[in-house]
């Protein structure tokens, strides 16, 4: 009986964490994707301001705490670098370089969640 309880509790623990991970990652990266598209459009139009990038950075700093539980830290750190670099380029009005950084961020926002999504190809 005790062992059955251990099996059930462990399974519940693992499965609930797994479901939570799927939920968090999908939602947060979808939001990151949306925000990055907006930053990309601003950089293309050369209307993007320091405040808008700062706001995006603050949002990311808040969200990435939870993401560190589920995603390898290197991938999160990459987004940190690109966002910080883009912030510097916007400050110096170098919109072309900022655009390049946002493009990399957008690509990461699309690919990272798909590699963690529960799919057969990801299991194998």
């Amino acid at each position, binding site marked *: 009986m005790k062992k059955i309880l251990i099996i059930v509790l*462990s399974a519940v623990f693992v499965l609930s*964490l797994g479901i939570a991970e799927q939920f968090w990652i999908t939602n947060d990266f979808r939001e990151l994707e949306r925000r990055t598209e907006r930053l990309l459009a601003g950089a293309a139009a050369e209307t993007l301001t320091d405040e808008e990038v700062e706001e995006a950075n603050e949002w990311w700093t808040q969200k990435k705490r939870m993401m560190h539980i589920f995603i390898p830290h290197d991938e999160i750190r990459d987004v940190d670098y690109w966002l910080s670099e883009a912030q510097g380029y916007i400050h110096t009005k170098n919109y072309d370089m900022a655009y390049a950084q946002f493009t990399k961020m957008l690509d990461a926002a699309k690919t990272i969640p798909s590699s963690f999504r529960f799919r057969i190809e990801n299991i194998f």
Partner: protein
Amino acid sequence: MLIIFFRSIIVFLVLLVVMRLMGKRQIGEMQPFELVITLVISELATIPMAEVSIPIMYGVISIFTLLIMHHLVAMLSRKSIAMRKVICGRPTIVVTPNGIDFKELKSLSMSVSDLLEAMRGAGYFGFDEVEYGIFETNGKFSVLSSGSSSSAGGASSTSGNSTVGGSQSSDDDKEQSKTQQNAGGQQAQQTQQKQPQQQKQQKNQSRVQRERDQEAQQEQQEQQSQPPELPALPLTLIEEGKLVKNTLKVADIDEAWILKQLSRIHEDKIKNVLVATIDNNGKMYVQQRGKRPLTLNTFFRGGNNW
């Protein structure tokens, strides 16, 4: 997390199957699924511990998955005999009174040397000491000993093994005849009082008795002059019809000598012998194809060589 959970299950099952296919020699006092867990769990624990870029949850989820799998597999093997056979395998009897079961030995990917090693680990140094030898599901080697003591000189037999020669039985005959002669001597004394003509006969009988006593004394002296029996450590001479050349060197014997010994059991080809061992005391264990094993006592005294 779900990906890691399912990946852990797959790797666990694959390792379990591989461990079962590899046979019992890979297992050391554990059931196959326990060994799989032992192999994997340390890596799972150390990698997230030392590698800071990997979330610790990766290790935690995998370890919990192994816990679930361990309990599930243990439960299945406890509840169902069929599942136990699939998961843990079955004990394999490799030595029987009919000798070594080479088919079973091959199924375990083991050689005669491996079997001897396992036997030594269990405290048995010769095949003639073992009635049944069983490899348990956890890789341990269990022995039901033959329980009979070995004898030096002449031919000896162990329970389940055949006997070659018969000097032991001839000794018994001698003893019986001696007792009969003693009884005969007493009767002669009685008749001497009644019939004086039997005195000559009695003298003859006492002379024969003296001669026999002398012979017995000589035998005793010969036995005492023989070297003391050494601790018996068998070497494999023939393994599956092939001579083990290294062992021949150690034992300082050659093929001709082995063939001479085999001729005693009417065997003229080495390839027909599945296994042959010899110990320091010259006791040779031979198992021919399709026959019960035999124990031969030879005059070989190579004990000092190994």
